[in-house]
């Protein structure tokens, strides 16, 4: 039972505003961990702390064996990151993107060449290798973007809404890619707005107002909240006494 993420009493305050308020959790190797919550609930801030982009106000987080506060650079070398929008350079070709990101992560030339060939054949993109990324269909771009995030063999990949706006078929194929990657022992941290996708995660955390309001397997969460699906779980957690309370927390 390797723990690749250990998070203890982690908080981030912006002035008086507690974006992340004392969260603790652990994630195991090869787990698919879902990060859910309304906009402004603190998901993005939490992810930024775990990826070493911002310093926590208090608390401790260890990612891939390194403390995010003391050694953010070591953390960054061991994680991959993909968001739907900004992961690839659209005006570069497929091959150029792979080479660029390989270079950024300090891979040797020979390794990059070898990985490029492997990646192109795995994605069946050999014929499109010298096309600009902007010319690829969205589904391909997404898979390429994911594969590029995995190029330096990170222990953990962070996926920030990787499937928003994508058709149902591409969305499912993408999840199969996620499963296959997790099978190989890579830990996946994923945020999504599709509640059915929450079901695909091994465990799911639901954030409300900077705190983790619930954390368990989808199955147990549904049991705990007596809900038919994750959508209902989400609604019950996010709006416990219906509308009034959330209107008060309407701030970003």
């Amino acid at each position, binding site marked *: 039972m390797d723990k690749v993420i250990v998070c203890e009493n982690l908080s981030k305050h912006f002035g008086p505003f507690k974006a992340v308020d004392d969260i603790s959790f652990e994630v195991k190797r090869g787990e698919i961990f879902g990060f859910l919550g309304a906009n402004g609930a603190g998901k993005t801030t939490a992810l930024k702390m775990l990826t070493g982009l911002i310093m926590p106000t208090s608390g401790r987080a260890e990612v891939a064996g390194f403390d995010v506060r003391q050694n953010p650079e070591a953390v960054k070398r061991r994680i991959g990151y993909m968001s739907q929008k900004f992961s690839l350079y659209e005006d570069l070709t497929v091959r150029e993107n792979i080479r660029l990101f390989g270079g950024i992560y300090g891979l040797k030339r020979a390794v990059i060449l070898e990985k490029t060939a492997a990646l192109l054949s795995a994605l069946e993109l050999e014929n499109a290798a010298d096309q600009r990324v902007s010319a690829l269909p*969205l589904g391909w771009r997404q898979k390429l973007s994911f594969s590029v995030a995995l190029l330096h063999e990170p222990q953990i990949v962070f996926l920030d809404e990787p499937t928003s706006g994508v*058709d149902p078929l591409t969305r499912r194929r993408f999840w199969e890619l996620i499963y296959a990657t*997790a099978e190989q022992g890579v830990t996946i941290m994923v945020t999504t707005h599709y509640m059915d996708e929450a079901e695909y995660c091994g465990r799911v955390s639901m954030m409300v107002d900077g705190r983790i309001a619930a954390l368990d397997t989808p199955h147990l969460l549904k049991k705990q909240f007596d809900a038919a699906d994750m959508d209902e779980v989400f609604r019950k957690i*996010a709006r416990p006494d219906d*509308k009034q309370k959330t209107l008060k927390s309407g701030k*970003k």
Partner: protein
Amino acid sequence: MLSISNISKSYGAIKALDDISFEVASGEIFGLIGPDGAGKTSMFRILATLLLPDQGAAKIAGLDVVRDYKALRHRIGYMPGRFSLYQDLSVAENLEFFAAVFGTSIEANYQLIAPIYDQLKPFKDRRAGALSGGMKQKLALCCALIHKPDLLLLDEPGTGVDPVSRKEFWDMLRDLRDGGLTILVSTPYMDEAALCDRVALLQNGRIMAMDTPEKITAAFSRPIFAARSADMYRLIQDLRAMPGVADCYAFGEFAHAVLDDRSLKSSDLLQYLQECGHTEVQVKNAEANIEDCFIELMKKETTHG
């Protein structure tokens, strides 16, 4: 209320809309359902008189979107994909501004927006930029409604909004419809199709199917079983390999297996999966949902070219 005939629009080599025709009746919520790049936004911009179609015509309340665009602009309420609000103006200032621009006042049509605006009132002095996604969405809706339009055009109102706010938003739309408003709405979230009176499934600029959501799902031709086990990933792989299974995809905690072989029973799947070494196996009959239909239609489109 709205009739669209043979509209096409291309950007260079890319066909954003390819011979689209449909009609929307008064007092109906009509949904354009499709992923990003399906052509939804181009369709909305044509109807909002902001874009000229290459071919075809569209009429709203008898007015042509190209010829009578000036008269039409008084009669439609348009909410573009990104919430078009002034981030540096407060909630009240935004609303006042859009009311004035349309030559009306908040008081004149307050009745229409009251149920929505009442929820925003506690924050009326807050800048729009500091609102949550759900609140921005509500404010943008108020701004689009303030001049009492006949037709509401909502382009992806749910993007960037959490599921709970999205649900509330749909409740508001249904209330507005019950008040007699006609609404054309687009969304990439397939589950929202069920909330529309009628939908068109859009992919690559073409309508793949158009009907009530119930009829679209009822038209699904093959039987579906929902299966689950302790290992979803292997379950999908194994089901795909099973003879008689055409296709298999994850749907929430279950995987949907679409069958070619109608003689297969749930007990056959159960037995097969247990033989494959799955634990906690459960198999049941399932109804097709919009996503099943969308996937099937997509595959048909690609095989037929």
